[in-house]
């Protein structure tokens, strides 16, 4: 099936919509037919996304003017798709919803973390969570996939090898995040004089992404999660203190991480003895679909402590990159198609 696939983006003027558009415009197997935006309808897409100047003459269309296509990406705020999923799925055979509306399988968890009944709870089971490293097989058969939460994704990758080996008893994670996580709409807190130079505790308890992490890695361990905003636009770094049920040697931990990620093209192990970039770091991943993972073992601790570290670009592996990777899996294409950018150093 190598006919060009027509894809559209519902909600294309935001940061995730903009990244989807950047990737899809240069994706060899797809053709972008429509990009919708209520506020920017009629304007060139490069008016919101200056990096796309001279590369496309596409204009935003009003959501009501959307026409059917082969594959639809939803990049709307949370709550938009949940109520309209019925007719949205009428627009395309396959669909990825980047919002949180269909990420959780369990309607009870959705109500607990998002504070309201899910308007279309029956649809939750028809969506597959869009993280190929977790559920490639399911995604191959899926028509509907959700996007991923960035903090949940970076934490999931840090913990996965230890969680799957049943070694985790308690985990304390602090994720450092950039300002683009808040999206394109300005708020008091994102006003430059207030945001610049911030090292600001954002969510010390009760962060929604915990539900996603539990869904990804199971609930057998005690998970404690906090988020701190730092001087960064793109990027998320998870620092996870893991208290293990057994004592391990460094080689054992290396082996677990290698086994889990050996065949993953977008996960790199980063634990170096020398050089500046010894552990994963988000800045060097900007614009790429990579997740870098590393760890350090604290010898002679009881229970044994391992600090696992992971980094991603929240707009890419934490959103648009995983969504395009999911498109590739759902269409049976090479997973890395259109996701080859290596990243920049220095940046």
């Amino acid at each position, binding site marked *: 099936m190598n006919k060009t696939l027509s894809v559209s983006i519902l909600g294309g003027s935001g940061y995730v919509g903009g990244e989807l558009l950047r990737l899809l415009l240069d994706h060899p197997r797809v053709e972008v037919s429509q990009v919708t935006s209520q506020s920017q309808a009629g304007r060139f897409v490069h008016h919101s996304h200056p990096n796309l100047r001279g590369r496309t003459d596409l204009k935003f269309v009003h959501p009501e003017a959307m026409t059917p296509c082969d594959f639809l990406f939803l990049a709307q705020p949370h709550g938009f798709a949940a109520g309209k999923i019925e007719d949205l799925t009428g627009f395309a055979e396959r669909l990825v919803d980047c919002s949180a509306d269909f990420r959780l399988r369990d309607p009870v968890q959705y109500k607990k973390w998002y504070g309201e009944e899910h308007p279309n709870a029956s649809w939750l089971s028809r969506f597959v969570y869009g993280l190929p490293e977790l559920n490639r097989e399911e995604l191959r058969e899926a028509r509907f996939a959700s996007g991923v939460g960035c903090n949940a994704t970076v934490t999931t990758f840090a913990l996965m090898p230890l969680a799957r080996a049943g070694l985790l008893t308690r985990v304390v994670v602090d994720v450092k995040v950039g300002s683009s996580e808040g999206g394109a709409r300005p708020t008091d807190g994102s006003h430059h004089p207030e945001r610049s130079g911030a090292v600001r505790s954002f969510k010390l308890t009760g962060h929604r992404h915990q539900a996603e992490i539990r869904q990804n890695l199971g609930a057998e361990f005690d998970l404690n999660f906090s988020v701190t905003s730092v001087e960064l636009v793109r990027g998320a770094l998870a620092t996870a203190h893991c208290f293990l049920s057994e004592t391990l040697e460094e080689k054992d931990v290396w082996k677990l991480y*290698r086994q889990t990620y050996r065949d993953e093209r977008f996960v790199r192990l980063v634990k170096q*003895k*020398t050089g500046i970039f010894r552990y994963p770091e988000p800045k060097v991943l900007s614009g790429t679909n990579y997740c870098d993972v590393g760890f350090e073992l604290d010898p002679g601790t009881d229970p044994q402590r391992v600090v696992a570290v992971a980094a991603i670009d929240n707009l890419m592996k934490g959103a648009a990159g995983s969504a395009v990777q999911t498109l590739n899996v759902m269409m049976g294409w090479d997973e890395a198609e259109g996701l080859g950018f290596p990243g920049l150093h220095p940046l």
Partner: protein
Amino acid sequence: MSDKKLECPECAGSVELKADTMEGEIVQCGDCGVELEVTKGDSAFALQPAPEEEEDWGE
């Protein structure tokens, strides 16, 4: 002697020794970046962590 694969003493990753590798040479492990010295084991080559200055980050 064709290329040989040895196990890194630090991270158990595989380190490839080119056919023309000599004793005393310093090679770097691709996974963990540690610098390793090629030594002569009883019959074949072996790898030992090379003495490295502990870089002071001073953060």
